């Protein structure tokens, strides 16, 4: 039982990180039909921004994080939208998908070329100690990760439902044409979602990099998990992405321990295929109407 709880918490913690990436992914899809194949690399890169701040400019960790956040929001938020999404969105979904595949290669190779192919240690947010809860030794790091990701998602929910800007963003996602008629600055709302996505990937990077170390190839698997989480939960629902992420983290951890480490990816992948074939709108999603 203690093992079970330990695994569950560890699974929820990694799941929380997947959820952050998946929420950003669905936000971009909702407001601008962007399928970001580089989402995994979007989580990989901010960690290197922090490392550059610390190692090349000698800044303390917290200041590097603040600078990295700004840089991430400018590059992966605003510039990504202006330079890549905006020029291509008129060509349809597929060219943009291909372009983000290109972007993923560019980011990966860029980091390898300019920072190196090694795995770099990254300062953790919590000490590597265990806390005793009901007889189960839980890692403090897992608890912190879980707490931070829940807090982030709750804050985002509050923002989207409780503020005027948040509701304008929702309106933009649901029906941009009507939103524009109502006087909502649609373009700015779309920009906000890109900035929020940048902040989310930054947070995910801070949480996951201490565990996996900073490496140029980290994004490959992370991106895959973010898609799977988004699709399992439902592409068009934020709470779907959250549930999908948590579920995926738990499934992943239990598969690794109880079935096979070699085949740990198989269960999520089969789950993905089954969901797409039999419930393409996801477990929590709405059906999107098709147009001819």
């Amino acid at each position, binding site marked *: 039982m203690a093992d079970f709880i330990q695994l569950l918490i560890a699974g929820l913690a990694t799941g929380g990180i997947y959820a952050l990436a998946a929420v950003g992914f669905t936000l971009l899809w909702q407001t601008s039909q962007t399928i970001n194949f580089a989402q995994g690399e979007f989580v990989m890169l901010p960690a290197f921004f922090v490392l550059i701040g610390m190692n090349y400019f000698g800044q303390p960790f917290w200041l590097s994080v603040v600078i990295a956040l700004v840089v991430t929001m400018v590059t992966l938020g605003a510039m990504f939208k202006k330079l890549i999404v905006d020029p*291509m969105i008129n*060509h349809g979904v597929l*060219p943009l998908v*291909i372009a983000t*595949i290109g972007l993923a290669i*560019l980011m990966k*190779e860029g980091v390898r070329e300019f920072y190196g192919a090694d795995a770099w240690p990254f300062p953790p947010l919590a000490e590597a100690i265990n806390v005793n809860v009901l007889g189960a030794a839980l890692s403090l790091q897992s608890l912190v990760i879980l707490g931070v990701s829940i807090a982030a998602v709750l804050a985002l929910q509050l923002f989207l439902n409780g503020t005027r800007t948040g509701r304008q963003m929702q309106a933009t996602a649901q029906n941009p044409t009507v939103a524009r008629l109502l006087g909502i600055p649609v373009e700015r709302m779309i920009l906000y979602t890109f900035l929020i996505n940048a902040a989310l990937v930054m947070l995910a990077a801070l949480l996951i990099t201490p565990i996996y170390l900073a490496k140029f190839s980290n994004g*490959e698997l992370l991106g895959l998990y973010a898609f799977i989480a988004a699709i399992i939960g439902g592409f068009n629902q934020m709470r779907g992405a959250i549930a999908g992420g948590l579920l995926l983290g738990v499934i992943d951890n239990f598969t690794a321990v109880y079935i096979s480490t070699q085949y740990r990816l198989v269960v999520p*992948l*089969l789950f993905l295929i089954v969901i797409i074939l039999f419930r393409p709108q996801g477990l929590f999603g709405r059906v999107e109407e098709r147009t001819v």
Partner: protein
Amino acid sequence: MTPSQKKVLAAAVLVAAAVFLLVAPHLLRPYGIFILSTWVVMTIAAIGLNLTLGYAGQVSLAQAAFVGIGAYIAAYLTTRGWPFWSTYILAGSSCFVVGWALGYPALRVQHHYLAFVTLAFNTLVYLIFRNEEWLTRGIYGIMNIPRPEVLGWSMARPIPFYYFLLAHLVLISWATWGLIRSPWGRAFIAVRENPIRALSLGIDTRRYTLMAFALGAGLGGLSGALYAPLTQFVDPTPFALGLSLNLLLMVIVGGSGYFFGPFLGAVVAVLLPEWLRFAQGYYLMGYAALVMLLMAFCPTGLLGFVDRVLTSKPKTTSATPPLAGTPAAQKAAG
């Protein structure tokens, strides 16, 4: 440029490319011949993907899995004494069947969902290659794969084997050319352009969608069956998702839906990195940038770009367009 002038130009480029392909191995060292042979094999796989993606409009991120299945079938059986031709046919037909089965999801979902299903399939197949050691020898790979004999002639040396591969490429291109000009090819394009209209015109879109997947996969299998004797060593690494993405980029960069698109795309993805070795990591970054630029300004790929340059210019400036178009068009035909 008038259509007839374009035809003359295309023919000239094709002849130049054919001459290059026939002469080149005698001027290259063994490593160069190996790279050129790799280009032939990858082009065959990309032709297959071009059928699925370019002509029938079905996104597939699983082509590497089919190349892998073909390669493993050939490797497993030829090292156990089977003759090459039987494994070649078996590789192609098995992949045809698996591809047909993978086509079923495409009947239910489209575009990015289909991309994810095929992506998942590719990763599953890769995991099987890596983990089922009794069958594939896992990460140790299968070694000493023999090269075939043709009418008593040994293909073991690089140059004969290169010509052997080239002959396959020519035959496969010829067959594909015939296919896309047949009613089948027209039906593929109809399914891509407007599936509902195609259906209302009496085209069995269901059958043609499955067929597009199966044929693309079958060609992937054939290219795998040629890959195994080329490298004479098969391990799981080359058949991971990376190759599928790479093949997809080859088709798109070359010009998806253009017959010579995959040829050109494979030049950019397989040959250029070798010629531009000094650039190393920067090459991939440049390639990625090229992909993004193409998607922004010319989603129809390099051949689409050449096409646009040649058609948009009036006849009076005929001196410039061929010059601008020729180097790219040459690669196209190569």
